């Protein structure tokens, strides 16, 4: 029960950070409040007893903040101004109301907070992983045994995506610099 209250406080903090990030005029303060959301998320993962996710979240958030501050510092922002598009606003409000309605219905179909869905389904594969993970893989950390043994295909796909994106970015960069060198030689 105490954990739920802490999580509610964190959620309010994160929603406030998101609103500030969207509404503020200064790009740097927007990025910093984005970072506050990420760190709140990391603490929320700790309260939900997911230390693996908390470590990944906090490390990625630090790197992302450095990237974004490096990319946005000293940049001019063209503030968006003008009249409000009432028709567009109405459409957005209707869509959000629908999202909230179906979201509440979806959460109502879940179990009680703190009781995982796999506890009510006996033949779920997660139960087999939890029961036999240590004997089958020998890994004390069940998350790692799922990531790198039971579900290693997913990790391979993730590594491939990372590799392809870096390759593409470097290819674009290198093409520019080669073209520049060729232009200098001629």
């Amino acid at each position: 029960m105490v954990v739920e209250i802490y999580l509610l406080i964190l959620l309010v903090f994160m929603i406030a950070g998101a609103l500030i990030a969207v509404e503020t005029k200064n790009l740097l303060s927007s990025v910093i409040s984005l970072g506050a959301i990420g760190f709140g998320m990391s603490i929320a993962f700790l309260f939900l007893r997911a230390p693996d996710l908390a470590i990944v979240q906090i490390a990625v958030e630090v790197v992302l903040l450095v990237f974004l501050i490096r990319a946005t510092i000293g940049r001019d922002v063209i503030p968006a101004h003008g009249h409000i598009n009432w028709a567009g606003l109405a459409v957005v409000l209707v869509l959000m109301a629908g999202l909230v309605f179906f979201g509440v219905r979806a959460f109502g179909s879940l179990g009680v907070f703190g009781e995982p869905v796999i506890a009510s389904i006996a033949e779920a594969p997660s139960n087999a992983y939890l029961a036999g993970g240590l004997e089958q893989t020998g890994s004390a950390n069940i998350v790692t045994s799922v990531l790198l043994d039971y579900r290693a295909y997913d990790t391979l796909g993730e590594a491939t995506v990372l590799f392809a994106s870096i390759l593409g970015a470097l290819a674009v960069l290198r093409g520019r610099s080669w073209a520049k060198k060729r232009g200098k030689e001629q």
Partner: protein
Amino acid sequence: MKGMTVIVKTVTRWVKVFIFLFGAYIVITGHLGPGGGFAGGVIIACSYILLTLAFGKEFALQRLKVGAAHGLDSAGGLIFLLIALFGLGFGGTFFANFLQSRYPGLEFHLLSSGTIPLSNIAVGLKVASSLFLVFIIFSVLRIVVARDGSRSMVQEEEEE
């Protein structure tokens, strides 16, 4: 990018080793405690990013060249794929944990759980070099706003 003040440089000189060691610790003990290849790789990349920010781009690129980082990136992916193919060869299925079925180590010890620590090291190598490359790309590219408001990415002029 010439680097920051003396205070930042001195602190960085002390702290970078500890950040790197913490990342390596999280990668290596990923099968025993929270963490793993991805988180540890990001922390290792953090140490290089700190070096780049504090001492400038040229200093960091002397320590880890773009070609070397790209090679490490490819090596990490290839090692991960090789582990999977060895599983196909020795264990019968793709990504089979063939080491664990042959040499089951003592549980809760560093040398246990077969191919999982090796995969962790491969993924950590890959993620660390990838993120370092992403940061180098970010610090090399610069967005230029033209007079008519159109934006284009150009490479920063190198000092010669």
